[in-house]
């Protein structure tokens, strides 16, 4: 669901950077304050795992493909702000090394997937963990993925309003929300479920092998 460069109007991605910059600064301070030397390798390893998960492409009906998002794993393991920071790094690497996403749209992707996705996942998990911990994790990750996909679809869907050329052709992404919402969100209803199950499997292994403090 990464938005690539060239599809988003500058007024949208610059506004996203204005919102993301203080959020990144806060996340850096929080990680620097709360993470000890034993936590950093764990964060690095799970961030690397999230990066690898995003490269696993799943074929989808219609000839296109989708991939796991990976932020739910980081969110449940470390919390919202470390997940946001680590996932932003994943997005940078994906853009520079794999051509997925982009640098101008980094803030949009980071806010939608890294921050909102993580916040929804953690919020749902905290709410439901007392009832059934595994189900809370799976549902939290699923909802985080779906909400992130919805945000991405809405950002894409408003682009036709952001400008058109002399011939009336949109200057940026050409499809409205009536197209983007079903096309982007639909596949992520399934991807999110797979990601939720995989995240819980990984986390249960990580929790069993946690080094006592």
């Amino acid at each position, binding site marked *: 669901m*990464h938005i690539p460069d060239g599809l988003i109007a500058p007024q949208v991605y610059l506004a996203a950077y204005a919102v993301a910059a203080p959020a990144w600064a806060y996340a850096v301070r929080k990680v620097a304050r709360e993470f000890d030397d034993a936590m950093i390798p764990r964060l690095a390893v799970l961030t*690397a795992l999230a990066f690898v998960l995003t490269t696993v492409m799943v074929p989808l009906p219609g*000839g296109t493909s989708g991939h796991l998002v990976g932020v739910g794993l980081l969110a449940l393991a470390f919390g919202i702000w470390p997940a946001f920071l680590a996932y932003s*790094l994943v997005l940078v690497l994906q853009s520079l090394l794999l051509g*997925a996403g982009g640098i101008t749209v980094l803030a949009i992707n980071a806010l939608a997937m890294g921050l909102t996705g993580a916040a929804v996942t953690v919020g749902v998990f905290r709410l439901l963990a007392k009832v059934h911990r595994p189900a809370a994790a799976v549902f939290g990750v699923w909802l985080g993925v779906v909400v992130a996909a919805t945000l991405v679809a809405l950002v894409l869907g408003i682009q036709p309003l952001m400008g058109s*050329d002399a*011939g009336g052709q949109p200057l940026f992404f050409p*499809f409205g929300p009536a197209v983007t919402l079903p096309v982007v969100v639909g596949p992520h209803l399934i991807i999110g479920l797979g990601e939720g199950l995989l995240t819980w499997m990984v986390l249960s292994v990580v929790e069993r092998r946690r080094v006592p403090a």
Partner: protein
Amino acid sequence: MFCRPFKTSCRLLAALVLVAASSVAFGHSMDHDIATAEAQVLSLSHPFGQQPVFVPYQIFAPDSEVAFQNGRTDALGRISFLPDRPGRWRVVVTTEDGHGLEVRVRVDEALAVAEIEGPARGSLVNILAGVGYLLGLAGLLILWRKRKKDDAHP
């Protein structure tokens, strides 16, 4: 008496004007011609080898924000275009799910492709490089924190 040939001439003239006017009316139709030319062909594919079929694209000439050409990929996921001037052309492909591609094609004075710039392609080497960067960054962070601690409490 001489009025009759004059009338005939007038009728002939009117007929000629009508014929001429009808040829002007052909201006509303569309003529066609076929020429053989060497077009540039951009082939697209998804990671599983499937082609993005009938996907919208726009092509921008150098230093132009107005599309030179727009349309949809063909049934084999291809875009062909015929540049009419040298410079850096931009091909923007957008799928409905927000995926897309921007390729810059530098066309030389002979109107041939001199260079193509596109996004980095995913490969196992690049994925391993990404993992290496992340682990390396964590190592550097730990070393930096350790050094900071050592400096604070020598």
